[in-house]
């Protein structure tokens, strides 16, 4: 393992441990206040946890356990941080901003500028070299900030929602740049956007309330989410309960039939989840008797357009929020309005059931 961390900070109810392999990029997903920025702060040395330790390869970043009080200052860690705001030094032009890292590492002015030019070119920002930060758009500034972080040759690159402040036109360009530069690099990227996780990360970690609640390869987590947060991001309905041969049983006794992975069967009482896309849900008025075995009375809370479909959001008896995607025509036929009691029916063939 190339990077390892274990840290807790009681004041922020923060306690995580994680590790990164060489060249691996990990995406951190989680709601506001989950502790994502706190994690990056602890790694970069801007925030001191109460206890724990971290190291990159053989270099100990900090060790506050076992009575040792080792604490490396941020500038000795090799962990460049890029946040939502580019925070380019306003008194330096783009080139000198990028040259800042090499200069700080002791390179000559000329050498640092050369390195800076290399990295500016790498993020397609050479024409901006002589502009002051105040003359850059948000997207341009963010690309220069990426170049600046990379020019410092960090062993671990930390990105805190680098695209959150950009508009829909600037974000894809930066994402493309990041995809290129993060390829063989250790990096941790905090994001709210599942696209970032798909495109940039080898692995995702979902955090909630200062704890890691789920982690795994990006596809696994987003296609077979185990946390409501991840399911929300992936656009899936998620129902938790106990695994059975048929599917799962929810705590209030409802049975969700679904498909297990082939050749696998649950141990009795094992916790599991059932996940299914809103497009697999049909909406009916009144009772139904048909081939789909999963049918639940719910109350509509909301109707929203969703692409060329209508997304029907509803709360089930077990207070779990479910959604269904139906055509506008079907919605109009049924006369759906918020507050209406309807029945959601899911074909069990489309429900994936797996351990939580």
């Amino acid at each position, binding site marked *: 393992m190339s990077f390892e961390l274990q840290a807790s900070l009681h004041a922020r109810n923060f306690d995580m441990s994680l590790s990164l392999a060489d060249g691996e990029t990990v995406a951190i997903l989680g709601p506001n206040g989950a502790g994502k920025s706190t994690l990056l702060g602890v790694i970069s040395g801007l925030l001191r946890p109460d206890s724990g330790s971290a190291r990159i390869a053989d270099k100990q970043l900090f060790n506050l356990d076992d009575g040792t009080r080792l604490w490396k200052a941020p500038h000795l860690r090799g962990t460049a941080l890029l946040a939502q705001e580019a925070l380019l030094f306003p008194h330096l032009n783009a080139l000198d901003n990028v040259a800042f890292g090499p200069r700080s590492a002791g390179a000559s002015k000329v050498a640092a500028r050369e390195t800076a030019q290399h990295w500016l070119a790498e993020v397609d920002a050479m024409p901006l070299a002589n502009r002051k930060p105040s003359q850059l758009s948000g997207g341009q500034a963010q690309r220069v900030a990426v170049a600046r972080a990379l020019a*410092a040759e960090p062993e671990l690159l930390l990105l805190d929602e680098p695209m959150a402040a950009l508009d829909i036109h600037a974000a894809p360009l930066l994402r493309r740049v990041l995809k290129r530069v993060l390829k063989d690099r250790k990096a941790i990227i905090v994001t709210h956007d599942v696209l970032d996780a798909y495109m940039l990360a080898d692995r995702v970690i979902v955090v909630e309330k200062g704890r890691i609640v789920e982690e795994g390869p990006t596809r696994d987590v987003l296609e077979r989410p185990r946390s409501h947060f991840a399911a929300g991001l992936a656009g899936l309905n998620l129902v938790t309960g106990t695994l059975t041969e048929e599917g799962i049983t929810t705590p209030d006794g409802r049975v969700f039939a679904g498909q297990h992975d082939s050749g696998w069967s649950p141990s009795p009482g094992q916790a599991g989840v059932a996940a299914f896309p809103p497009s697999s849900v049909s909406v009916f008025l009144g009772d139904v008797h048909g081939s789909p075995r999963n049918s639940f009375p719910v109350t509509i809370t909301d109707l929203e357009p969703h692409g060329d479909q209508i997304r029907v959001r509803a709360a089930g008896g077990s207070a779990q929020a479910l959604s269904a995607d139906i055509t506008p025509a079907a919605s109009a036929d049924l006369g759906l309005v918020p507050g209406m009691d309807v029945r959601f029916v899911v074909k069990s063939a489309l429900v994936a059931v797996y351990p939580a």
Partner: protein
Amino acid sequence: MNRRSTFGYHGVPRWVYAVAAVGGMLVVLPLVAMVAKVNWPQFIPLITSEPSLAALGLSLRTSAASTLLCVVLGVPLALVLARGEFPGQRLLRAFVLLPLVLPPVVGGIALLYTFGRQGLLGKSLEVAGIQIAFSTTAVILAQTFVALPFLVVSLEGALRSAGNRYEAVAATLGARPTTVLRRVTLPLVLPGLASGAVLSFARSLGEFGATLTFAGSLEGVTRTLPLEIYLQRETDPDAAVALSLVLVAVAVAVVGLSYGRRRGSAASGGQA
């Protein structure tokens, strides 16, 4: 970019301007009154007399020196107060601000008790062959003592409002604290530092009580412009008023420039 306010709302009620005018009058009228009292035909000869010029020259030299000293000592103090965290920080701030509110004569006495021949440090200094009393050094020391808080207060404010986000980024880019200070912190707060320095200079220029008590008053050595004014007043109030006006003019120019410059650079450095 998002930080920049799109709007320029100024909702100051009109009566506020009226009260402000009264407040402004309180300050401006005395100056007008002074100008009115000046014996204009004699103005130029009065202010170009030999002692006046000597005093003005000495004032400018010592004020420049004490401003330098204020910068050298005040920048670290402001940094420590704005960024550091240590026990007694509040007390240190109160102490550093003290010369702002201390009657300068008392400040002069205190300096005498410290650097004077029989003072706390003075004894050791005398053994080392350094004599401060009655020298231009004493003037500079007195001026630094009273002017230091101006620099520290201005700069601490600038440091606090600049925040430490740029510094944190610089550190993660591998910059040692000293590099961060030199290449990020100081350039960012340059306007605050400049206006602090200018205020210090102006305060040094006006310093009277502490100098009189601590340094004495000898033409060309320790008699600065305010001391000359005080002395002239005994015999020739006209000359005193004329000299005061010179001091006022220098101070207004210096303060006006300082604040003008600060606002200008605040506008252009808006992203911070």
